[in-house]
């Protein structure tokens, strides 16, 4: 290893671990000791990353308050140093961290709230894609409908939350007192997507969530309706399927439809 490389490794180690070895290679300034000057880098490291987390997770920050959020943020910084050149991706691992690290894992609403915010952030700058509109559907003859498959918009993602984090998110967003956190008997099924430039989310009924998941896997409309028939009233299955599909298209969650 070159001397330059060794020095950089020690400089970095001093910031990440508090090791003082590199101070032996740093000069005092005319007005200040080297410990204080090097300390500017040490302080800036943690505070910059926690600040980025505050920006990415404004409502989790609001939920926890400054002190608890910053304590959690510094724990995350220590556990998962950034490995990506773009600060945009630093807090991507936060939901997983909150799900697994004490004491945060004892409060599952925290991981859920972080997961919801992460999904909305990801939808905000997700890849572009065409937006399917209703007129495209008119191109298909009725006998083709059973074979239609759908492609979600690149910004769309679906996941489950085990807690009432969505209600907490909504209350925080509206500057209202959030409800007490509770673990739900049935998971909350969330669909996140971007409508024009605005990230959106919606809680789906269990049946609609099932249909979305299967549609996203490329299952054709006819089979989707057969699945719906096993879920609820078989006679209304096709109408329910068409209703869900109509909602997806008008809210810009789909990017393409194809027949077979």
């Amino acid at each position, binding site marked *: 290893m*070159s*001397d*330059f*490389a060794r*020095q*950089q*490794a020690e*400089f*970095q180690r001093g*910031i*990440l671990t508090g090791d003082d070895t590199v101070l032996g*290679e*740093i*000069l005092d*300034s*005319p*007005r*200040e000791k*080297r410990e*204080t*000057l*090097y300390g*500017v*880098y040490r302080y*800036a*490291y943690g505070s*910059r*990353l926690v600040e*980025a987390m505050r920006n990415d997770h404004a409502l989790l920050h609001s939920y926890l308050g400054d002190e608890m959020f910053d304590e959690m943020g510094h724990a995350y910084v220590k556990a998962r*140093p*950034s*490995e*990506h*050149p*773009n*600060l*945009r991706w*630093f807090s991507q691992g936060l939901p997983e961290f909150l799900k697994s690290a004490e004491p945060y894992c004892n409060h599952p609403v925290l991981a859920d709230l972080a997961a919801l915010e992460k999904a909305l952030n990801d*939808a*905000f*700058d*997700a*890849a*572009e894609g065409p937006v399917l509109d209703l007129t495209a559907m008119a191109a298909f003859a009725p006998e083709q409908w059973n074979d239609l498959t759908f492609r979600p918009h*690149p*910004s769309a993602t679906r996941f489950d939350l085990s807690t009432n984090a969505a209600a907490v998110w909504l209350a925080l967003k509206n500057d209202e007192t959030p409800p007490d956190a509770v673990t739900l008997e049935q998971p909350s099924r969330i669909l996140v997507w*971007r409508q024009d*430039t605005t990230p959106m989310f919606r809680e789906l009924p269990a049946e609609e969530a099932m249909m979305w998941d299967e549609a996203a896997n490329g299952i054709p409309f006819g089979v989707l309706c057969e699945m719906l028939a096993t879920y609820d009233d078989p006679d209304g299955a096709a109408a329910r399927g068409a209703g869900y599909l109509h909602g997806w298209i008008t809210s810009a969650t789909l990017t393409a439809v194809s027949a077979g």
Partner: protein
Amino acid sequence: MNVASRLPNSMAAPERARESIKQSDKPPFLGFGLGLRAQHYDEILNSNPPIDWFEVISENYMLPGGQPLRTLDRICERYPVVMHGVSLSIASTAPPNFEYLQGLKDLARRVEPKWISDHLCWTGVHGKNLHDLLPIPYTSEALDHVVSRVQLVQDFLGRAIVLENVSTYVQFNNSEMTEWEFLSELSRRSGCWLLFDINNVYVSAFNHGYDPMTFLNGIPADRVVQFHMAGHSHMGTHIIDTHDHPVCEDVWDLYVAAIKRFGRVSTMIERDDNIPPLDELILEVNRTREIAGEFLVQLGKDSGKQAG
């Protein structure tokens, strides 16, 4: 890592290509600009404010899609744009990050910036990124390394890059030359242009106890293509480059000295935090323009011709 395989085919004669980049024309004078910040998107798009050009933070747009890129496209239709990165990590001893470089190149293809700049610094090694502009020792070993890294990046991007002096808080005891000697030699050997951050010179000079004029006079005048003007936080014994305050009077004075030495240089106000309303920043942009106008005319009279 096979570096050569990552370079474009046009690099079949790398020395010739490298020489061509080194001899490339000096970037044009753009006038008096501002750092583009998301807080001002709507106002800029709705009112077309009298700003000559914008500098954008490259990483803020190295994204898959959505509003940031769509807005940038619209800004690029109306204003000249320069890309300014914070993660090139040109002085890192870690292997080059070609994924990052490809992202930068892709963005440049979209933006068609007047130039691409970053900082003379490193941001991490061993797979970690500290997201800071970290200092280097000014040694011949470091210089050789950075020159070769700049050449590699310029070969990859197919254009000369622009590098900025950073604010530093520490100096290494093994430095063999001054920062301005390092920058001058780096620019001469690699062909990169220089972004002279006047606030950073002021901050580093105070922190290390030298005269900022010595720094200023040590930089070759023909290599500087851009000025940054910014504010900072004074801690008494040292200054921290926070970019969250208006430009202070001492830095305005140094700007006058920089104009006298470097002549007509594209100048911009860089505010990274505590972002004020656009009008406040336009006042600072106007001040950069007025001061330049005043002193360039004076210089023209002194020398019998218009500087520039």
